[in-house]
């Protein structure tokens, strides 16, 4: 066991865990931030996607030791009031079905929009191919990202 200082959603946490413990389980079991989901444990499904210094990353493959000193953002910290343009678009278009993958989808999509505010369908395919949706809400995920792009651009009018 070792002590680590983690910067998660703007707050500093100290945890005492084995150094190889994936960030995913530290978030879920130690910090009670269960929005980040476990799906496969090998970086194939994207349900555990978080931002490490703004970059979409798989928390299941990130040892806690390597997350120390890095700004970690989880779905709980994506916005202060649940009003990120993607969160608004997801509610407006009713994207989710079971909803289990959606935290990971939103974290991947928010990293995409941060670097590319107006992504094409092809950009979305590239950025989102690592996130499985078992309910297959891909149709609405694509629409949701386009809609969030509009909301962020200040155009609240429906396309």
């Amino acid at each position, binding site marked *: 066991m070792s002590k680590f200082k983690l910067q998660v959603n703007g707050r500093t946490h100290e945890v005492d865990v*084995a150094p190889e413990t*994936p960030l995913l389980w530290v978030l879920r079991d130690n910090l009670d931030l269960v929005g980040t989901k476990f799906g496969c444990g090998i970086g194939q499904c994207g349900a555990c996607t978080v931002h490490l210094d703004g970059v979409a990353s798989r928390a299941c493959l990130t040892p806690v030791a390597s997350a120390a000193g890095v700004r970690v953002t989880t*779905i709980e910290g994506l916005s202060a009031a649940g009003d990120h343009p993607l969160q608004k678009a997801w509610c407006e278009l009713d994207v989710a079905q079971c909803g289990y993958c959606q935290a990971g989808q939103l974290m991947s999509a928010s990293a995409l929009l941060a670097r590319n505010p107006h992504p094409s369908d092809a950009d979305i395919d590239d950025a989102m191919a690592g996130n499985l949706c*078992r*309910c*297959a809400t891909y149709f609405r995920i694509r629409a949701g990202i386009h809609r969030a792009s509009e909301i962020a651009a200040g155009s609240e009018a429906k396309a």
Partner: protein
Amino acid sequence: MSAVLEAPIGRRSFLRLATMAGGGLALGYYIRPAGLAEGGAPGAAQGDGLFAPNAFIRIAPDGAVTIYSSRPEVGQGIKTALPMVVAEELGADWKTVSVVTAHLDKVFGPQFAGGSLSTPMDYTTMRKMGAAARTMLVEAAAQTWSVPAGECVAEGGVVRHAASGRSLGFGELVAKAATLPVPAQDTVVLKDPRDFKLLGTRVGGVDNPRVVTGQPLFGIDQKRPGMVYAVYEKCRVWGASPRTANLDHVKSLPGVRDAFIVDRTVPAGQVTGLVPGVAIVADSTWAAFSARRELQVTWDAGKMPESSWDDFARQARQLSAAAPGPPDVDEARRDGDIDGALGSAAKVVEAEYSYPFISHTNLEPQNCIVHVQGDKAEIWAPTQNPDGARKLAAQVLGIPPENIQVNITRIGGGFGRRLDSDPVAEAAAVSQRLGLPVKLTWNRTDDLQHDHYRSAGFHFLKGAVDAKGALSAWRSHHVSFGSTMGKDDFPARFVPNYLLLTSNLANNVPQGPWRAPGSNTYAWITCCFLDELAHAAGRDPVEFNLALLGDRDLVPGTGPHGSPYDAARMRAVVRGVAEKSGWGKALPRGRGMGLGHYFSHQGYIAEVAEVTVTKEGGLKVDRVVAVIDVGSQVLNMSGAENQVQGSITDGLNAAWRQELDIQKGGVTQSNFHEYSMLRIPDAPRAIEIHFAKTDHPPTGLGEPALPPLAPAVCNAIFAATGKRVRQLPISKTDLSWS
């Protein structure tokens, strides 16, 4: 311990049960329950002031309406749709309604989520629940104003008396309403559906704000004070039992509290409950997962340790050549003179279709919390079948089912898998030994290798068309793994000369319902082979299928348990989809349209897929058009369309690349890197959905839009390339053309 469930309804007194008219459901129908304790629900703290006309509705003096959702939410949208029905009849303002998941309690009637049955079973019941409460609120207002109740209208959370211009909010009426008698169910007057304001509109899922902010909704998110974390190792070979394990070493690992062998099968002899394995209990999920990597087990071989897919396929072919008759080949249905019709046909087509076992791959791995304390237990589980979970846990624990409380969580994907409760059985066995709340978490390998799979099958088909191009004979031999086509499965009753033979292969593959069970593969073989016969007859597939559907309307089922088939409803959706899709338009080689149609889960659905196949064989599904008849009323248009979009994409997901590799008595794949799931680049770009409203009771939409997709795509591939896909997954067929 921030993760908490919505608190269940508290213990009630003054309970009055009323028997539902018609359905025979016994639902709680009581007034003035004491000691309510709905944690986050509005008005919960006000206890006595709540108006509780029945199990599903609470109205607080401040007007806040709480509606209980009794069916598990798996992503089918039921937690939004059925409360909308209640709110519609109640005349509530949807914006002020809170929906709370009920725990398992008989006052709510059946609480499983499966078979697309929640809507058809509960639609009228929920209307009556809302209407009964509305009747009491209206009566309370009428008495207050000394006017006839018939002059008062409840809408938007307010009762109005138009003639005098007076109005009172629901909250202002609850004290008086709670003193009134609850009207008998069969006297409750329902709204005219033409007056519906909420039903049929687009309403976002009630949990959306919590889903998009990562709140602890799912089973795997739950925590209990003093909880420990468990994993449960089973042999890759189904039916094998642990003989020995390095338990002392595992117990010495960091954070491990206990490790032990469970050598029981509950129920005895079945593979879908508790099966033998090795449990490890630790202080955290990761400690348990880590310790498991060092676990070494010697297993006693399973019952069929050598079974493999190639072996199954060889046996199926042998059976296809066997003469009809016991013990190998049953005759499920015979109409007309099949041999004569095949002998005198203008054209005969023969084909072998097969499809593999596939997994449910719920993205939320199987998990639950069970806390056993003496002869009592409490369960928190993402279960589609809370009553089944309770019964199985009771068997494992040897305690009465009524001593077990089941808390239903949101579910990260069901698809039928979570109708079975094996993870609950495992957690119950572990918690009984420790006496602590135990959270059991499967990993992805557990999930893939110990799923209860969508059954595989082989269909040996021979069909014929006569000189006029009509389907004259259909001979089908279904070699299955335990569950065979039924005597009323289409196109039985529509072909004059028809023979259905069935055989079963000995196997011990764990199997269970997978979204649209049976239909999800029968639609594929049926509509694809019909397409082959249409082309053999030189006829357009839409026209050929319409001719086959004939001119009868309701075709009765065969025998007392037969399944009626409304051919008029199917003709209408087939015609509709041809029109909406632009069927028959000229397309260049490499592009094509295909038709699929199927009746399942009481829904009549036709779909046309439009695909592009590159010369190199690359497939793209460009567009899918669906025409859907699920009766007179779509409850939530947004949710309904979401189900159809998802079913279509999921149908493609299942058909395109999914295949379990069975070798030496088990599945070889261990995770998603070896089991290919559809991702966003391959999802259809355009999905167009049209609801054909008919004068039939509303039915469910979680499943029936899936079966027609696979044949629509495969028939479109044929139209594009001239290549027939007779084996799933589609990826096994070389689609290249020149």
